């Protein structure tokens, strides 16, 4: 399904502030490690492929010079702070480089008591956007190569970090392609929508990359891995695939912070973030709630209020 918007002329996005961010991340990481304020820093470093950036966990101040920030810094590094990554947490107190979208995940995780604010140092990066999936990492950031989520970003400057690095340029207006897709789905009949998702999920190969990169999929025993009793068929076939993706969407409702990592990493191009956004939209309508805005909030599906809407009970 393509966006309904008219093709826009390609606009280059000014990423000169990323070099500033890189310098500031390096000096801050070095200071934090030298002064033993933290034991490890979770950030990005350059990969072998030209222009690429990959997650890295450094413990030596000398390694701080390897850290970078660029449009290839697509990963949400908050996953390395969850209990799914015990070996990283075992290193001691952590600092983490976080874009605005990533920081919303950190806020959500704190809300779920996964760690306390004082246990982590957050280096917030001002961000004009990162690459879309499948873009060669050395390509410049333009309206054609930018991730869909960045087109509608409202957190270019992270909130709630210990310090903010980088410099925000003038940002071009970009059409919200994902919002348009969502509207197109909303306009479908339930039958058409069912067919649409059935077709998408048929492609799923159950590599579980969507689960493994999700900051909120930190369960030590995933319900969908259970064999006795088995909740969801593990075979990559339509019924089990549908089951898995519905469970995933429901478990993330009111928790997903919109980093869209699940969609970025899907090797089968399933537009998973559309589901996440739909859930978020419902939560906003029903409970006036948005996930990840402030760190210490409890989600509407994990708390109870007598005034909650109960019209669904029939």
């Amino acid at each position, binding site marked *: 399904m393509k966006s309904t918007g008219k093709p826009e002329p390609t606009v280059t996005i000014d990423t000169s502030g990323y070099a500033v961010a890189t310098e500031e991340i390096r000096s801050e990481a070095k200071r934090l490690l030298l002064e033993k304020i933290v034991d490890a820093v979770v950030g990005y470093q350059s990969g072998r492929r030209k222009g690429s950036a990959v997650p890295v966990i450094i413990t030596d101040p000398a390694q701080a010079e390897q850290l970078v920030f660029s449009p290839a810094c697509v990963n949400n590094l908050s996953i390395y702070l969850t209990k799914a990554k015990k*070996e990283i947490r075992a290193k001691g107190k952590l600092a983490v480089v976080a874009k605005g979208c990533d920081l919303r995940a950190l806020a959500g995780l704190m809300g779920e008591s996964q760690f306390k604010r004082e246990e982590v140092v957050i280096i917030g990066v001002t961000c004009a956007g990162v690459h879309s999936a499948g873009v060669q990492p050395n390509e410049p950031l333009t309206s054609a190569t930018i991730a869909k989520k960045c087109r509608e970003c409202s957190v270019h400057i992270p909130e709630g970090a210990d310090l903010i690095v980088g410099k925000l340029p003038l940002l071009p207006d970009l059409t919200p392609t994902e919002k348009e897709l969502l509207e197109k789905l909303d306009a479908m009949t339930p039958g058409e929508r069912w067919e649409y998702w059935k077709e998408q999920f048929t492609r799923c190969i159950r590599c579980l*990359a969507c689960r493994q990169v999700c900051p909120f999929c930190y369960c030590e025993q995933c319900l969908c891995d259970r*064999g006795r009793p088995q909740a969801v068929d593990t075979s990559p076939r339509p019924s089990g695939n549908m089951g898995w993706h519905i469970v995933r969407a429901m478990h993330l409702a009111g928790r997903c912070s919109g980093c869209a990592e699940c969609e970025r990493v899907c*090797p089968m191009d399933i537009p998973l973030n559309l589901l996440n956004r739909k859930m978020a939209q419902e939560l906003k309508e029903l409970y006036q709630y948005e996930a990840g805005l402030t760190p210490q909030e409890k989600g509407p599906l994990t708390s109870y209020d007598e005034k909650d809407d109960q019209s669904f009970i029939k």
Partner: protein
Amino acid sequence: MAKVITEENLRSLIDLLIKAGKRVIGPKRAGEMTIYEPLASGSELTPGTLPRRSAKEAFFPLSETILSFQKDRDGLKVDDVDTASFPETVLVGALPCDAAAPQVMDAVFSWDYKDEFYLERRRRTTIIGLSCTSADDSCFCTLVGLSPTDTKGSDLFLTPLAGGGYSCEAVTDRGEQLLAGYPELFTEAATVTPIPAAQPEGAPVDLAKVKVWLEEHFEDEIWEEVANRCVGCGACAFLCPACHCFDIVDEGTEQKGSRRKNWDACAFSKFTNHASGHNPRDVQNKRYRNRFMHKFKYYDDKFGKTLCTGCGRCIRYCPVGIDIKGILEEIGKKSLSTKDTKGHEANHHG
């Protein structure tokens, strides 16, 4: 003289094969990507770009029934799968990194236990390979002893020509038979000008030396360095043309169901989890070490083959940019300067 087939005749060949009752699998457009899938007609063939998933599914589907069961008043009835019903298949347009992989996997599927599901499909499949004309920075077939023009694994091998069409080389008797079966589709040409083959960056790695290095560096800081960031998904294994681990599951109800063979991945934390709860590969970097060791040491130990064809899919689609080409190059360099203190030279076979 070279045998030549036009693009149009290649598509006609596919149509004729389908008409003759064969299942023809080839690269087919699916949204923004191409996938090896059964073709409904020759017009669907989309050759040249590396499909998102490998061609191993032609022999080793991502999920298949190996038996089905039913329980009623008369008792339990178990039905085996009749492998004789598997369709005669032609895999067309497999790039060298995909065409070469089944030969590598044959060893493990016909080792102590003969996997009839895999082997029967192999027996019934003819592979038409296709020379590769474009490489990106994740490609590394030349590092692991293959090349963009390697005919290994193909029965018939096509090389795209500058003026359109393909020159055809019969690699096996099966390939000869295919040529002989449809003589009207092929012409003879005195000279042909192939489109230049792809040139993946990077120098070949001495895999024998890499193996020696791996033997001596099971415990090494490199595994933490390269794989602490691994998130434990199966994207690498599931896109790989040579990864072949599978899981057997029973699905259905007590009354009716099937036993299935599904792809599995060594990056999954459950992969080596024991019933006791103990997991010998307790953290992610140990799981990645296993993947690398299996490809460049264990498989060679057992079968004398490298379990990697350098397609680069695991690099392109790793969520956290784990780069097997970079790691292989790094270990390749380290292995040159390592003194072989344990005298392993005599043990390995290039």
